[in-house]
């Protein structure tokens, strides 16, 4: 690896900070961490020459060379296994799934090895497993899923899903520096969403894993959500504001471990909780959050906890069906209205 650093840089590095899209923010984060720490490397399908299916790693191979930006065969199991092995040997791999749906191919190694390595052998796996998740881009059932609840029940893993460029950069950097395996979900709809363009600091910063964010302050009702649904929630909140409803939106940012304090503080304030996620409702992360609220904020509840997710079907390919499948602003507005009127 030391040799890789000595290779001549062929490409210009991107600016630090500035006004960036979501995808640029992630790229900046990885870039900076690779500069900062020579143990950091990228591995995945088409992450090198092609720059990644969504161009997250675009330019990295030219700058850092093919030994730090490694293209692999189409085998997620191999990617996870290689990353785990490298991590055990002291490296800091950033492994990419072309679509997060295929993380299931590496499921055994993630849950039975990466997640348990520190517990069982006292050896952490400081690896980041990242990839594009989410629907709404007409990518059909195999390229649209949200997989957080597959891993929710696996102690030893951390899970992160940012909703804006600032958090994305801060969290990817924090994930890379984390001594344990972090699953990093990037909602593909956000990558180049113009409304998300945001000025981020030039200086090095991280967003601490395990900390949610109050995306919008309110007093009547808490919408607890993350990822692309933060935008849905904010849009709904804006619409509801015109009706006199003062909505608080909690952006979880980290899904595992959940930021209990922020969730509970919000519910204790507003006394009404609407949990919104894009994965199907049944068995979704919403159930875990609802359980947490019921257990620890019961006496503060003025209404039943409501979960809003996708309907319990695979993500349809047909655009109108996909729209029907996913929670829309209108659904959130309706649910919030009902909950507020309870």
């Amino acid at each position: 690896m030391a040799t890789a650093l000595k290779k001549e840089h062929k490409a210009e590095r991107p600016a630090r900070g500035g006004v960036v899209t979501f995808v640029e923010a992630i790229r900046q984060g990885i870039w900076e961490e690779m500069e900062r720490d020579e143990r950091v490397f990228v591995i995945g399908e088409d992450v090198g020459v092609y720059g990644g299916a969504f161009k997250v790693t675009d330019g990295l191979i030219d700058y850092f060379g093919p030994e730090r930006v490694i293209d692999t065969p189409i085998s997620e199991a191999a990617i996870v296994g290689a990353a785990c092995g490298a991590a055990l040997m002291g490296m800091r791999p950033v492994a990419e799934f072309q679509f997060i749906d295929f993380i299931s191919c590496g499921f055994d190694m993630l849950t039975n090895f990466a997640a348990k390595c520190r517990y069982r052998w006292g050896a952490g796996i400081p690896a980041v497993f990242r990839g594009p998740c989410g629907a709404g881009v007409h990518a059909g059932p195999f390229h649209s899923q949200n997989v957080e609840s597959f891993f929710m029940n696996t102690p030893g893993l951390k899970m992160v899903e940012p909703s804006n460029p600032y958090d994305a950069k801060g969290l990817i950097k924090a994930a890379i520096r984390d001594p344990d395996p972090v699953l990093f979900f990037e909602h593909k709809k956000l990558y180049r969403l113009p409304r998300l363009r945001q000025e981020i600091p030039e200086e090095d910063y991280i967003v601490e894993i395990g900390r949610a964010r109050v995306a919008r302050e309110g007093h009547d009702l808490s919408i607890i959500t993350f990822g692309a649904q933060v935008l849905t929630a904010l849009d709904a909140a804006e619409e509801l504001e015109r009706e006199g409803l003062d909505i608080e939106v909690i952006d979880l940012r980290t899904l595992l471990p959940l930021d209990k304090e922020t969730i509970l503080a919000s519910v204790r304030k507003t006394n009404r909780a609407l949990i919104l996620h894009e994965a199907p409702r049944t068995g979704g992360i919403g159930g875990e959050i609802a359980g947490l609220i019921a257990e620890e904020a019961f006496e503060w509840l003025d209404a039943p906890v409501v979960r809003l997710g996708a309907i319990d079907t695979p993500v349809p390919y047909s655009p109108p069906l996909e729209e029907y499948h996913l929670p829309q602003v209108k659904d959130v507005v309706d649910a919030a209205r009902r909950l507020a009127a309870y």
Partner: protein
Amino acid sequence: MGESIAEGTITRWLKKVGEHVERDEPLFEISTDKVDAEIPAPAAGTLTEVRFKEGDTVAVGTVVAIIDGDGASAPAPQETKQEAPAAATVTEAKSASTLAPPPPAQSQSDGSGQQATAEAPPPAPQPTEPPPTPAPPTKPKEAQPTAAKPIAEQTVEELRRTRSSPLVRKIAREHGIDLAQIEGTGMSGRVTKNDILSFIESGGAAAQKAALQPTPAPVAPPPSVSEPTHAPAVQPAEGDRVEQMSVMRKKIAEHMILSKRTSAHVTTVYEIDMTRVARLREQHKRSFLERHGTKLTFMPFIFQAVISAIRRYPIFNAQVSGDQIIYKRDINLGMAVALDWGLIVPVIKRADELSIAGLAKVANDLAERARTKQLKPDEVQGGTFTITNPGVFGGLFGTPIINQPQVAILGVGVIEKRPKVMTNEEGDDYIAIRTMSYFALSFDHRIIDGADAERFLGHIKQVLEAGQFTI
């Protein structure tokens, strides 16, 4: 029975464990938000277990005692399923003994056990009432069943109304508030957080909301809005006697404060010449007693004068709800009855439909039953105007506190002979001995102006002084 009744305090056990009790025989006395009452035994048998002692406050639906029935024929009513099989509410138990044999599922119990449940507050025993049809389980007629029904049997709508939410229940508990007295704006009329907070915070406005509820007499006041930061606690000095307030006392206290905070009280006083009414009463006293079996007092005349004035000035029969005024259709006159242990205001329903004799009979009956704790909850609810009579003790006049959610109360001072300057037809002044009384009207200046009150009381004066009554 009575949606707002959630609990009652057992004030006295009238039977001891081991004693035999007849069906409908008074078993214990209970003090609730609404009334104090004797609870009749739901069935005959031996009192085998008393689960709560005097002074204990128990929730409605709680089994407080077990009566071992006289043989296996004792029926097991089908109420309170989560309780022991033979559990019964008192009201149902009235008909229990006439019910069909116990359902099969219940025959495995000791078969003869009959549990009396604190169904508060029960009606007076009505042994002459024909037994209701056995199935399905009878419900108390006048009841709003929600409070009495076990949670498992309540509909979602009822539960929303009665149980609201964990948060609201917690707030209600902390502030000693009865949710049934708050008008809910949530789903199914549920009391929301905002409802209860504005009830607590905005005193007056809150009381108005509460006023909409069928709130009876001072003894059955709207919720207690006891602020945590009330008056400073007083430390008893050595030798002082400390006594716990009774339920009734606490409720009266809360209601009085609530009323003072809700209404803009103004009192106006008229002196009324009752000589003609007194004469009328003197003339008919004896024959009235013979014909109707009850005494003819001044009150029926005063009631009729008030009814006449209410018909003319219906604002005195109104209630305030937010920024609306609700004119009540019925004229239900509350009459304050002083008790050795407090005060209660039974209500003469649709008093305007009653004659002098009818008013006398109903009023005397209510007063009598108030003193013997036999009022039904329904009989202390729904008043639209209240008359209090401090004159019976000799008081000239007072400034009565309005019985919420009403907007006026009339206090009748002592009726006595006084020297009065009169003028005869020739225009000569003379002093005469007349039967006089001061009438003090407290009214809610929020919706009633002084001139209205003068006209109202003036009309009463006119009617009483004219003395044109049909007996």
